[in-house]
């Protein structure tokens, strides 16, 4: 019988920090833009230029360190990592090897049905991003765009404690909601705001020492992390069971083919000649900076999840869905603030609203319907002004046309008919038009009440409030 295998996974996630300017220059940080239109002399590594550290980049790293309960170095430094590559203008990357700004810390990941696991972090350090090469544009040539060069990155390195592709994806998700909640990253995965490298090895279940690992580079979605690792685990098992050995190498995940393959021109045994960057001095994190960062620390996803369960009595699913996206959470809280029952608010936000967001591929920060209007809409259901089904139609209109809920309810003519006089009139007619049935009812065939209700609803084109109609009819038929 064949051995059972277990996988050991560690992630290195590059978090693009949401600063205005680059980490060492005053060129703007922004996605897109004409090639090299956002690369100044410093980013190009012109002769004679020098780096100066961006205070926000450092501040955001400190904020992250506090949020994951890591150790913040009161003095850290930058090193040069030396290698030649066209998207690396200076021939070295400014990074932190020996003295990272944050070491240790931890992150809780959601294992579903309320279970969670604490993953320990090795470190988080600041570094500059490289530019990008544009291939296939010109025969035999690559074009270099350095707009991204010098963009501040926080590289967050986990301990190899993740046990499965699913856990890895959950870790990536947890980190994603954390950095968004902290406001230090826009979390825009398709624009590469968070890129993940995964270290993965396999070993027979229960075996202590680690197998040889491979590194999968540049995975940029939760789904891809899961698929890339699943593929790589199968590949490694295949290699070993075929009597082969896993070779230490850097591999690339090809999403189209859904496979990983060795990265060419990338030497894993490169001698990077790290040494302290002589253009930069030791970076000191002062008490003042720490205090300020602490003060600015928002409520973290974990705490928020607990609060939602406690104060709003929401289930695990609703809690983690809502707290997973700070904007969605903010919207949800705004809706409940209008006095709507929280679970009902959650149902609408996670139901209709989220569905519409997915359909329109919009982010939760630009929901076109003001929370107040959704609050009113939900209130009208409770008040019996409008039926749940009708409310969905009204929300759709609000989503498309904006405006205020009550106006749409009125205009749509979907409001229920609650006017006693009007209803009594309709009930009266129904009874008078059907004397026989009325006779039979009075004779004890009370099942016929439904028949009369039907008549009234028909007459009111379904707008009559069924509860009121029932009462009125019962009075009419028994009363007289």
């Amino acid at each position, binding site marked *: 019988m064949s051995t059972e295998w277990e996988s050991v996974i560690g992630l290195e996630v590059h978090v693009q920090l949401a*600063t205005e300017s680059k980490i060492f220059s005053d060129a703007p940080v922004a996605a897109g833009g004409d090639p*090299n239109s956002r690369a100044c002399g410093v980013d190009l590594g012109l002769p004679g230029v020098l780096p100066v550290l961006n205070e926000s980049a450092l501040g955001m790293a400190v904020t992250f360190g506090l949020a994951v309960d890591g150790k913040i170095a009161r003095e850290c430094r930058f090193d040069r990592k030396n290698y030649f590559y066209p998207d690396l203008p200076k021939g070295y990357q400014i990074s932190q090897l020996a003295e990272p700004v944050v070491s240790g810390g931890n992150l809780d990941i959601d294992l579903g049905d309320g279970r969670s696991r604490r993953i320990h972090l090795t470190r988080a350090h600041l570094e500059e991003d490289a530019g990008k090469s*544009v*291939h296939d544009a010109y025969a035999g040539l690559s074009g270099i765009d350095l707009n991204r060069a010098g963009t501040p990155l926080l590289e967050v390195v986990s301990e190899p404690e993740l046990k499965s592709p699913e856990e890895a994806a959950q870790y990536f998700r947890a980190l994603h909601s954390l950095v968004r909640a902290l406001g230090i990253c826009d979390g825009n995965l398709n624009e590469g705001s968070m890129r993940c490298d995964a270290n993965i090895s396999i070993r027979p279940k229960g075996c202590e020492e680690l197998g040889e690992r491979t590194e999968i580079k540049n995975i940029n979605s939760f789904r891809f992390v899961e698929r890339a690792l699943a593929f790589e685990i199968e590949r490694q098992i295949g290699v070993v069971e075929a009597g082969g050995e896993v070779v230490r190498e850097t591999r690339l995940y090809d999403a189209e083919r859904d496979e990983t393959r060795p990265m*060419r021109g990338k030497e894993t045994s490169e*001698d990077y000649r790290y040494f302290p960057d002589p253009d930069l001095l*030791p970076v000191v994190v002062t008490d003042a900076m720490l205090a300020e960062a602490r003060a600015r620390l928002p409520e973290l996803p974990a705490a928020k999840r607990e609060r939602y369960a406690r104060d709003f009595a929401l289930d695990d699913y609703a809690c983690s869905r809502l707290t997973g996206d700070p904007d969605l959470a903010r919207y949800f809280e705004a809706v409940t603030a209008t006095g709507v029952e929280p679970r009902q608010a959650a149902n609408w936000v996670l139901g209709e609203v989220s569905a519409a967001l997915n359909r329109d591929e919009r982010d939760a920060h630009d929901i076109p319907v003001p929370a107040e209007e959704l609050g009113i809409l939900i209130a009208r259901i409770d008040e019996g002004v409008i039926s749940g089904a009708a409310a969905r139609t009204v929300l759709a209109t609000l989503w498309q046309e904006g405006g205020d809920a009550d106006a749409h309810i009125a205009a749509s003519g979907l409001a229920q008919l609650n006017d006693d006089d009007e209803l009594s009139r309709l009930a009266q007619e129904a009874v008078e038009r059907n004397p026989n049935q009325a006779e039979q009812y009075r004779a004890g065939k009370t099942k016929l009440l439904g028949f009369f209700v039907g008549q009234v609803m028909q007459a009111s084109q379904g707008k009559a409030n069924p509860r009121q109609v029932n009462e009125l009819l019962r009075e009419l038929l028994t009363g007289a």
Partner: protein
Amino acid sequence: MDSETVEKLLRLSALELDEDGRARLLRDLGRIVALIDEMQSVDTEGVAPLAHPLDAVQPLRPDRADPNVDRATLQQGAPATRDGLYLVPRVVE
């Protein structure tokens, strides 16, 4: 210092030399290493490395962006550009 090391250093430094160039280099580097080895006799037990002559700390730059990047000027002397991109022989990944 041996020719194998010289090859590695040339590769790391993205430099190339012909035969006698490498021979001369091997000889010169041998002499240079001999010179720098003169510091090995100094007792540096418990002495921390000094990366900078002044004990200063890193000043921080306010996070303000200057959107005026004059690409035309910056690329005036560029050996090969097209559509604002710097051109290089095909990069294989």
